[in-house]
C-alpha cells in the first residue's frame, strides 16, 4: 500500500498470507526489502514519499506457520 488516503475495510473478510511479495525498496546499506507482510505499507519506489492517511479495518489477517511474514508492516509518515 503506497497511495495516500487509501482505505481497506470489509464486513469481516479473511486474508491469508501466501509468502513474500516483490522487492521494490532497499535499506540504506543496500539490503533488499521485500513486501514481507499481508499489508506492507510503504512507498513503492525510492523517488516517492511514504504514504499518509492509510486506514485498515474490519479484517481478519492470518499468517500460516512456517512463513517469515508479518501481519502488517507500517512505515507511514506523518501528515504535514
Amino acid at each position, binding site marked *: 500500500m503506497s497511495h495516500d488516503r487509501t482505505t481497506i475495510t470489509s464486513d469481516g473478510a479473511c486474508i491469508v498470507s501466501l509468502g513474500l511479495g516483490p522487492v521494490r525498496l532497499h535499506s540504506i546499506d543496500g539490503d533488499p*526489502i521485500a513486501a514481507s507482510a499481508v499489508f506492507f505499507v510503504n512507498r513503492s519506489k525510492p523517488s516517492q514519499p511514504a504514504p499518509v492517511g492509510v486506514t*485498515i479495518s474490519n*479484517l*481478519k*489477517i492470518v499468517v500460516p506457520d512456517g512463513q517469515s511474514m508479518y501481519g*502488517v508492516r507500517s*512505515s507511514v509518515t*506523518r501528515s504535514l
Partner: protein
Amino acid sequence: MSHLDIGGAPKDDVTISGRGNGNSYAGDVSIVDSTLSGASRNAISATAVIGLRIERNTIVGVRDSPPGQPAAGIDIEPDDRGQPALDVHIVGNTIRGNAGPGVMLELESNDGPAVVATNLEISGNTIVENALKRSPPKRAGIVLAGGQDGGQGDSGAEGQHGAG
C-alpha cells in the same frame, strides 16, 4: 488500524518502523480495538516512531519462537540511539498469556541511550500472566530499560491492573 484480528503465526502481528520509507521513522500510527495473537517475536514492534497510539486491544499468545526473542506483547525498541520513540501512548489494552513481557520499553540500544525517547504513556491496561517462558531475555509485566540520554525524557506508567 482498527477492528483487526491478526493471528496464525506471524513474526510480528504489527511492525512499525521507518525502514525504507525515506524518513527513517514512521508517524501518526494508531492500532485500536483489535485482537493480536500468535506472533513468534512480538505482537507489536515499534523501532522508530513519532506518534503512536495503541488502545483497547487484546494482545495474547506471543510464542517466543525460536527461543530467545523479546516475545513481548508490545516492544518499543529503537535499533540504534538515533531512532525516535516519541509520543507513544499504550492505554486500555488487555495483554495476557505472552511468553515474554507484557510491555517492554527497551530504550538503550547497543550504541547507547536513546537521543529522543519521551512522552511515553502506559496507563489503564490489564497486564496479567505474561513472561510465561524462561527463554526471553527480559521477563516482567512491564519492562522499562534505559531512557532518553541525560534523563530528560518524560514517561509514565500508572493505573495498570494485574500482576505481570
